[in-house]
């Protein structure tokens, strides 16, 4: 074992392994060495085990987090779709109209030197006129005749105790939706008090508007050759 030749015979071998008395100085420090080796091996094994389980722990953590990421992504996508649904221009417009809002007209611009540019009009029940020409505002006309929706949802917003028929018929805004004829209707969305009056006004106003369009702005006779 130590280069001094193998001890022969079982008893000798035993005695060589477990010396009864502290033998020669060369063989004295064997036990700590063996212990050291055992500790090294043992700790190595344990470290390996810990490392392995740590790796596994990491992979468990990884898969748990991946699952969570998936879930959160799904949730984010669902919420994003919900937000998109609310912020779509069509949906915004519907809700704005339900609140009694109307499209604004051309805005006015205030320049640094104090001059005001643009000719803002007063908004009627169907939106602000874009031009105050002799004819009724084309944009308001378009909305009045096609969109029946804006006026209807506004009725339930008013207190139900006030029947619409009680309100006095206001013929003011019948022909034109010009600025001078609309203040009553224009103030409607903002204040709750005149609101009941606003809804009946918009209803009769629409009828003359559409008739005025067909009779008043009658197009020229059909051309033989296209033009215009």
């Amino acid at each position: 074992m130590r280069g001094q030749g193998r001890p022969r015979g079982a008893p000798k071998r035993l005695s060589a392994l477990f010396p009864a008395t502290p033998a020669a100085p060369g063989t004295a420090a064997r036990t700590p060495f063996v212990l050291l080796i055992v500790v090294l091996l043992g700790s190595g094994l344990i470290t390996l085990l810990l490392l392995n389980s740590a790796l596994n722990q990491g992979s468990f953590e990884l898969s748990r987090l991946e699952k969570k990421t998936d879930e959160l992504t799904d949730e984010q996508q669902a919420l994003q779709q919900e937000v998109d649904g609310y912020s779509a221009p069509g949906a915004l417009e519907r809700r704005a109209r339900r609140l009694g809002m109307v499209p604004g007209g051309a805005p006015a611009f205030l320049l640094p030197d104090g001059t005001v540019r643009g000719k803002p009009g007063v908004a009627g029940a169907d939106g602000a006129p874009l031009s105050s020409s002799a004819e009724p505002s084309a944009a308001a006309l378009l909305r009045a005749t096609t969109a029946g929706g804006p006026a209807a949802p506004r009725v339930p917003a008013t207190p139900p105790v006030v029947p619409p028929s009680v309100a006095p018929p206001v013929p003011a805004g019948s022909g034109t939706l010009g600025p001078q004829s609309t203040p009553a209707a224009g103030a409607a969305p903002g204040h709750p008090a005149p609101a009941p009056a606003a809804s009946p006004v918009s209803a009769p106003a629409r009828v003359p508007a559409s008739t005025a369009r067909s009779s008043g702005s009658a197009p020229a006779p059909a051309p033989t050759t296209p033009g215009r």
Partner: protein
Amino acid sequence: MTEPRDPRRVPRPARRGGQPQNRTGRPPAARRPAQRPGAPRPAARRPGPARPGSGPQALRLGSPRPRLRLVSLGLTLIMLVFVVRLFQVQAVDAGAFAARANENRYVPVKLAAERGDLTDRNGVALATSVDAYDITADPSLLAPAKTKIPDAPQRAAALLAPILHVDKAALTEKLDRPGSRYELLARQQAPQVWKRIKDLRKTLDARAAAAPKSAPRPDVLVGIFADKHSKRVYPNKDLASGVLGFVNSLGKGGGGLEARLDKQLAGKDGKLVYAQSGGRRVPTAATQEHPAVPGADMELTLDRDIQWAAQQAITEQVAKSGADRGYVVVQDTRTGEILALANAPAFDPNDIAGAAPEALGNAALSDAFEPGSTSKLMSMAAVLEEGVATPSTRVTVPNRLHRGDRLFADDVDHETWHLTLNGVLAKSSNIGTILAAGQLGRTQPEANRVLYSYLRKFGIGRPTGLDFPGETDGILAQPQAWNTSQQYTIPFGQGLSLNAVQAASVYSTIANGGERIAPTLVRGSTGPDGRFAPAPKPARTRVVSQKTARTLATMLESVVDDEEGTGAKAKIDGYRVGGKTGTSNRVDPKTGRYHGYTASFAGFAPADKPRITVYCAVQNPTKGSYFGGQVCGPIYQQVMAFALKTLQVPPTGAKPPRLPVTFRPGQ
């Protein structure tokens, strides 16, 4: 054979015929003289196991050596065969076998690349991709024999129907097929739907586990599965559907920009290769992973709000006029970017199967139609640029004009008009335009050639530059091929055809000081690295001089502003608006003959410092008026006012110059 062995037999000396018995060469002592006379010739003798002569001695065994040799030889041969085979497998055909083994051992899995988004100019998503699940079932797992529940399919259907929003009876029918292993229950469901099914299954599982062991009742949702994949979502439904297009069931772009930009949007699929054994992944074996490269997000030039205003307006007008279809194009005059491109009717790209076939596609680019009077602007541009007339040039417009084989008239029957060139445009006189365009050359063919060169420069009869799928170039014949009436109708917009974007581009060219900028729909892309790469700059070509363009802009103002103009309905208070109406005979695509009208309006604002061009066309209005000023004027007004507000364009505040429309003869 037995007889000779009988030792008690008396030997007989006599032998017949001297038989050659000594064939084997044995010593005579061992020879058995036992042949009977009557016996047949004895068979060849062999060393028998028991010889009478050696009876009392030890049994003589055969030598073991030959046998051992034989066995070892056999073993060696067998080993040799093995070795040869081994050599063949391991060395000669090693590659082929290894390849065949790998074929089975390694499983490639496709890692799908995420498709890029399409966004508007402000980054609002117009098309995006989300996770979705196909809910499938294995009905054989629900068979009554397996579950021991006689009505398992019915129960499962009752549970699933409210979650999947599918008819219960239809679900029952699908689930009640014990022979089937696969049924598709619902397509492209949100992850939340699959989560609800999973949660439901978990509670049912818990209940099943709690049941007594004597009567095991498994979960009725046991055979429900889900396939995960990607789904294309268009949050704004039919908004800009014509431009965006759609994605087909394979996940590839099927139309519109989804098809045009498919390469950039699709990204690159990745691949994961791992070793498997018995269907399970071998954890220690090396895996090869090429991650997927997600597609780029493309930013379009569209503005979602302006697009909505345009689409809303044209959809309402098309319904009101009982028209076939209509288009609105909104273009930024300074950059050529298309801010809105609306079609009516539109389709919902979320539900392609339910869309009307004629609504698919982008009609604003794929329809070629005769522009009518909006095209007079190009004739006027040619006349002014060539210097043969000025806005105040006097044109006497008779009631009828005879040219070629026809008698031309204006849309209203009038006495002789005394108009300026400005008035010709404002009142949209066909006769006046023919007279003015006739001045372009000394002879009619020369005038045709000059007009043609201007039309081409304005982009008529050539691609718009958008490279959009299904786009038309329009039709503009060579000037020498113009027939007799065509050479007089083309100046006022009949006998040539274009698409809506080309028409809008003509007005943008004038608005941009006579320089044409090719229209664009894509601003740029954001790659996987998050960096924004702007799209290449569009081509710019000078068509007319700045002076001519400015003059034309003021002339267009008269159309809208003057009492005698045809475009009064397009007025916007506070702004100076320039525009031109158009009412043209429409070629019916079914018959190829003129039938019905195309009403259109084109213009830009503010006229003295243009920012936005709006073009509107309505095909075949059947109810109410069919004049461009009446049908499209209000749409122009509405969309233009909205776009000006959205882009916060202030009015210039300058007074319009009000060019004269008429003149008094003799002054």
